[in-house]
């Protein structure tokens, strides 16, 4: 678990600073007056359900989309009107990385190196890092989703960025790919790189990030350190299956710390922190109720995420 003390250089300006940033698409306000700062050394998580505005925010950060109001700066330089002036130390990708399918992975990296003004001297190195060296000669159209994702990371690392921006980097990867991608990001963050990553996996953000912003319908529902967020998390939703649900529900409703206890089909659902659950277990046993199943399908952080974003677990299962 990262700590907030991993931040290293503290330059005069934040690495990313958004002030009143707003973007509308017709009647839809995709990003609504966001104020946000990413400091040097942060591993900053941008969390939110689909459609919360994370990707639009990142597109504005990359200068791909112009804000309707407000400003976004990178290291004190406004991204607009000339993004390339501000983005010299920024690399990453928005949504799925895209490459020319009729060219090989290596050829794509060579073209991108030319667009960075370099000769592509780091291509072999970054291909090694993402373990694509043996498939570098294959055309990108033959790559799996995970390989394209890794090629996107390689293309980003080639720029030797100070800020790495990754939009849902583990999206679509298999469990092994997710593990490896998270390990890579963690290693890059440990090397001092500032990382801004969007995700709708609370556990991913919890595992890697030092600071987090939670977006909801274009606005920030939370912005602070992970420890602040954990402090607010408190109760997690629990599922309980017993030998006598009627008695168990009565016990739940009378046990201190157990809230929102309801019957849902063959189970009882309630919110509680760990101490309340310990107390409830004892009460159930003393009341002669056999516990068949007691578990927390979502963590306390995920429960908080659902609460902050007005979503339900079923709305966005991946968040769990």
């Amino acid at each position, binding site marked *: 678990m990262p700590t907030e003390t991993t931040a290293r250089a503290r330059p005069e300006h934040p690495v990313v600073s958004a002030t009143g940033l707003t973007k509308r698409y017709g009647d839809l306000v995709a990003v609504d007056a966001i104020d946000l700062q990413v400091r040097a050394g942060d591993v900053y998580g941008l969390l939110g359900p689909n459609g919360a505005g994370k990707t639009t925010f990142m597109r504005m950060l990359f200068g*791909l989309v112009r804000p309707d109001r407000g400003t976004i700066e990178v290291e004190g330089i406004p991204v607009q009107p000339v993004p390339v002036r501000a983005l*010299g130390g920024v690399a*990453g990708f928005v949504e799925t*990385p*895209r490459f020319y399918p*009729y060219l090989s992975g290596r050829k794509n990296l060579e073209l991108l190196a*030319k667009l960075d003004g370099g000769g592509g001297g780091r291509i072999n190195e970054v291909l090694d*890092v993402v373990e694509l060296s043996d498939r570098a000669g294959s055309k990108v159209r033959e790559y799996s989703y995970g390989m394209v994702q890794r090629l996107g990371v390689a293309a980003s690392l080639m*720029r030797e960025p100070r800020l790495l921006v990754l939009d849902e980097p583990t999206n679509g990867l298999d469990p092994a790919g997710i593990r490896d991608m998270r390990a890579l990001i963690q*290693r890059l963050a440990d090397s001092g790189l500032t990382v801004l990553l969007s995700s709708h996996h609370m556990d991913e953000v919890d595992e890697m990030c030092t600071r987090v912003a939670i977006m909801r319908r274009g606005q920030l529902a939370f912005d602070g350190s992970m420890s602040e967020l954990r402090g607010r998390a408190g109760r997690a939703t629990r599922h309980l299956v017993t030998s006598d649900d009627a008695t168990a529900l009565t016990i739940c409703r009378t046990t201190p710390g157990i809230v929102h206890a309801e019957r849902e089909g063959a189970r009882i659902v309630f919110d509680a922190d760990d101490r309340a659950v310990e107390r409830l277990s004892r009460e159930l046993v003393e009341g002669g109720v056999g516990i068949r199943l007691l578990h927390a399908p979502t963590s306390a952080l995920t429960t908080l995420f659902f609460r902050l974003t007005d979503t339900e677990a079923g709305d966005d299962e991946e968040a769990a």
Partner: protein
Amino acid sequence: MSSTASLDTPTATASHLTQRRPGVGAVYGVELGKLVRQTKVRVIGLVMVAAPWVFILLVLHQDRLPLETLYGRYLKTTGFATPMVVLVVAAQWLLPLIASFISGDMFSSDDNHGTYKTILTRSVARGSVFWGKVLAALSATIVVVLAIGASALLAGLVCVGGQDFISVGGTLVSPGAAFADVAVSWLSVLPGVIGFAALALCVSILTRNSVLGVVVPVVVGLVCQMYMFLNAWDTVRHLMLNWTMIAWRGLLDDPSYTAPLVRGLGVAAVYTVVFLALGYLVFRSRDVKEG
């Protein structure tokens, strides 16, 4: 992913990226590299270069000549007639088609592949991306057009021979002067071809659709061609891109005259500037929301 592969800490090393920002030249090189790697472009280039050889060989193996086509009656008389007949035919529809084929998806292909977000997040400014792509499309178009002309001239000289040439006015022209006439005639169609390429580039940017980028300029060319067949207002006819591609005929007349060519150059320049300016403004200001 490799846990053993090392990567230098990037924090202190990245500033050089901002110091030597690449410009139009880098994009031009990248786009040309992409063009020559596309099977479509290779096939078109090969077919276009081979076509004059097939044409003249077929003409030589038949009794009839395309008498209705300017210089058609001289195809078996002098090799210099071959590139001129090819030019007469190509100027009607083939050259606009070539311009559209190469330029019509220069911008929209990145929309289709979703790669704008890839190239616009590197170290090149949007303006450089625009001009690099434009220059690559125009230079590739020019190379293909000139390659057809050179191939047609070579086919005529090899298959028929370098006999004296006959000008539009009926005067005999020496092989040396004929070579110059052929070269100037082919070069004089380039502004019109560039005008069609600029139209294709503009449509490619506006519609973000590769098919429309190719089809619209060709349809425009055909409509203009149909109008030119009519004996309608000359003023309108002279303002059409197709007109600029037949203006070379005045140079080969006896006595020669240059007014249509000069006017044609002006018309083609106006079309090119307007289409490129419109494309530039749209490309610079567009949001990249897709991909």
